[in-house]
């Protein structure tokens, strides 16, 4: 299975600023996804990162707040823009390989103060 590297692993940010999270996979994968896990909550899908085109966002998530890039089949970024304390969460990158089930990076623990 592919190895996923997610950076940073954690960060503390000031409200009103933006943070870009990187997800690097050691092999080409078809699908990449971004999830959020708010404190004490389940994992919620933010968007599907499409290679070479705009991301597909789930209900409740918009591109202006969570812009996503996917320049190639091994890399994606998620930006959390104009942060507020409500954005404090764990953000997770997930990839799908057609031969196996979806697996996850170690996550980015974001705290907004």
């Amino acid at each position: 299975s592919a190895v996923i590297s997610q950076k940073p692993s954690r960060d503390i940010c000031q409200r009103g600023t933006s943070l870009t999270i990187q997800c690097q996979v050691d092999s080409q994968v078809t699908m990449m996804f971004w999830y959020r896990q708010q404190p004490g909550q389940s994992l919620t899908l933010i968007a599907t990162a499409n290679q070479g085109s705009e991301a597909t966002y789930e209900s409740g998530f918009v591109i202006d707040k969570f812009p996503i890039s996917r320049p190639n089949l091994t890399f994606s970024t998620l930006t959390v823009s104009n942060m507020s304390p409500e954005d404090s969460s764990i953000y997770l990158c997930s990839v799908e390989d057609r031969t196996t089930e979806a697996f996850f990076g170690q996550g980015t623990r974001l705290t907004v103060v």
Partner: protein
Amino acid sequence: DQQVKQNSPSLSVQEGRISILNCDYTNSMFDYFLWYKKYPAEGPTFLISISSIKDKNEDGRFTVFLNKSAKHLSLHIVPSQPGDSAVYFCAAGRRWAGGTSYGKLTFGQGTILTVHP
């Protein structure tokens, strides 16, 4: 609308005994179900999955049962070990026409399993 529910926030089990974690879903379009285990400060780790064409799948100490009519699945861990202590998430998804897509998943709230020595 919570399409995947894990109604037990926590479960405590003695080492060597069986752990049974439960999950209910409401969306009849789901046709693929997975269980993930998550330790603090780590991402979820895939454990076991089951397709809707089966009612049971077994992998070592882990067995998943699916009752489609009841829209219910369960994960059995036998025997339970202290290292199994973690948060367990149930997830559900759909296969896409012409291929498969396991990545777009709907998760339950998780159950904290504690296995006591």
